[in-house]
């Protein structure tokens, strides 16, 4: 819908866009000042609903900064892992315009393959290589069976096809590997265990080594992919395909090849994600739920932006942890199932294209 452009018939004193941008911070500042005054005046205090929702959490944050740091750290780690999942989506969407709902199950499938192979006696790093191979085969199969026949259909059809793919993979995975949760082979992959305690602000923050490793590995992966997209020949081809299939075809880029490459890359990302997530909890089909967490990340960061996936992931991860820790108890707990979505929805209402997405211009 066309943005309602300014309608004044005279030039206003301060440029409209500046006033628009300052609107939100000014309102928030106004509310903050009002609250401070109310508290100082003794009008609202502990026990009062307004106080509990709008003031108390911030007071808690300041009173126990070590807890705040702990929460922020955990949010950061979660955020990086969300970003990893979102990355898988972005890769495929960038190159084929398909929103691959099956990314979540691919994470589980990849992790299960790895652990399953190891259970059968395959040494850890060989199992890793084989798992990568399996993801490659999966990419080829998907391209041939699902993508090629559906090449000209509208996006929504392809999206729904990935639903079908998800169900199929869940059924397949469950029949091959069984439904019991498994333990990720953390030690065999030389991922660090244990934790360090940091004395900070008179309190203590506990940092899991695994989390640090996860954050580092994820960052490296994201950086590698970003470089790959930007500077290599295949990366360029991927971007061309993302822009227009027809144009890419006419320049001689093989769509089928590109799609296999992209789904394979997404598969590798899924494997890394599966290892990281599986190391922190168990490897089971419950991990599928994580895919649902990626959606708010993608909404914030846009579907085609790698930096967007990262920033979106961090915002959601940190926002969710803060919300859950400081506001969750007010609502009875367990709000992490939907809080991320609320964050994303609020963003959507102000910017329907997300933070980094392209503005949707409708032409008639």
């Amino acid at each position, binding site marked *: 819908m066309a943005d309602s452009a300014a309608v004044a018939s005279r030039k206003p004193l301060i440029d409209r866009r500046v006033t628009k941008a300052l609107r939100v911070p000014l309102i928030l500042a106004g509310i903050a000042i009002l609250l401070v005054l109310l508290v100082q005046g003794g009008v609202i205090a502990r026990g009062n609903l307004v106080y509990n929702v709008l003031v108390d959490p911030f007071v808690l944050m300041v009173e126990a900064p070590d807890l705040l740091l702990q929460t922020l750290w955990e949010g950061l780690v979660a955020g990086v892992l969300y970003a990893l999942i979102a990355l898988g989506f972005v890769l495929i969407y960038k190159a084929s315009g398909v*929103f691959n709902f099956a990314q979540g199950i691919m994470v589980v499938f990849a992790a299960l393959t790895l652990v399953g192979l190891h259970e059968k006696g395959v040494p850890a790093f060989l199992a890793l290589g084989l798992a990568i191979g399996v993801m490659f085969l999966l990419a080829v199969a998907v391209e041939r069976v699902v993508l090629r026949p559906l090449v000209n259909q509208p996006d929504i059809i392809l999206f729904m*096809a990935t*639903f079908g*793919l998800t*169900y*199929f993979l869940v*059924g397949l995975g469950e029949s091959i590997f069984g439904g019991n949760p498994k333990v990720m082979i953390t030690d065999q992959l030389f991922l660090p265990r244990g934790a360090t305690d940091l004395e900070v602000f008179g309190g203590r923050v506990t940092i899991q080594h695994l989390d640090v490793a996860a954050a580092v590995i994820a960052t490296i992966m994201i950086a590698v992919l970003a470089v790959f997209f930007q500077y290599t020949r295949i990366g360029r081809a991927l971007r061309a395909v993302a822009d227009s299939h027809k144009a890419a075809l006419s320049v001689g880029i093989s769509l089928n090849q590109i799609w296999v490459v992209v789904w394979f890359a997404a598969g590798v990302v899924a494997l890394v994600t599966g290892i990281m997530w599986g190391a922190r909890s168990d490897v089971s089909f419950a991990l599928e739920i994580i895919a649902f967490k990626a959606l708010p990340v993608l909404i914030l960061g846009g579907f085609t932006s790698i930096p967007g996936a990262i920033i979106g992931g961090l915002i959601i991860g940190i926002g969710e942890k803060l919300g859950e820790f400081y506001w969750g108890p007010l609502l009875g707990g367990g709000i992490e199932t939907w809080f991320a979505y609320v964050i994303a*929805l609020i963003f*959507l209402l102000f910017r329907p294209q997300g933070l980094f997405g392209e503005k949707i211009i409708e032409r008639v």
Partner: protein
Amino acid sequence: MLYREAGQYKSSYTADMAVFPLREDRIGLGIILLIAFLVIPLVSTPFFIGSVMLPFLVFSLAAVGLNILTGYTGLLSLGTAGFMGVGAYACYKLTTLFPGVNIIVWIFVSGFFSAAVGAIFGLPSLRIKGFYLAVATLAAQFFLQWCFIRIPWLYNYNVSGAIEVPTRTLFGVPITGPTSSVETRYLVALTIVVVLTWFASNLVHGRVGRMWMAVRDMDIAAELMGLNLLRTKLLAFAVSSFYAGVAGALLVFLWLGGAEAGDVFNIRQSFLILFMVIIGGLGSLIGSFMGAAFISALPTILKFGLPAIGIPIAGATAEHLNLMVIGGLIIFFLIVEPHGLARLWQIAKQKLRVWPFPY
């Protein structure tokens, strides 16, 4: 030879606009209704009625609701199970607070609660479109599911955390609760589904249906013709959620007799109903029934049908196979016939019209 429209002239616009213009179709519909109301309760086993027909009815109704929203209005929704839950819990609270009022009344009223919730979650549809809207409905699904579990008032503080359906009667015959017979519950559900489907059919073939389809096909053009987009979309959400809510109430009260939110109103259920609509055919009421029949019958077919023809299959494997078949079939249908079973049925009827000639 059997299925001809020759000789059936329409001499008024009313006749031309009939939902089933061909006499053969009307006869067919009559036969189906006859079988549903008379033959099935008399002939089938309680197992068949309770485990095949009742779920079929419940899911058909939910699929009709979702089809209105997604198939006719083009608004993809992943929150159907949540709205079903609203209907179920509303019905439960209403009937436990006012046990004197007939349960049928409460079933319909709970639909309105569901419609209200649906309309609220449909508000973002003004600014948000397409896929993003689907994510908003996903938010609704997770939020509602959380409510069902975390607000004990909803399940009357039952220790089990689940709805326990009390006995309610209609004309003195128990139709819910442990004392009701499966046949009575089936007939009540069947009547409700038939009536509501009739309403849905009327809506969809008239002015309202055209409004919805206009919004689906090109909402800019629809607006330029004077349609109020927000009102039309909210109406779609409301009506769709009404149907989902009633379906949810039927699910708990007439089919299962008690339910736990985590089991029956979860995200898996939402997806299953979406699949019914996709496989059955978007934008087709008949398709909703076909899709529901297919997906609710499939597990039973796999569990009992395969051993019957000599292929042994363990219970768990049947489950997994079920998922794989559904997944595979969705992909298959989307490739081969994106308009689903309903289109295949239409093509079959076309062939039947010229039978025994090939074309």
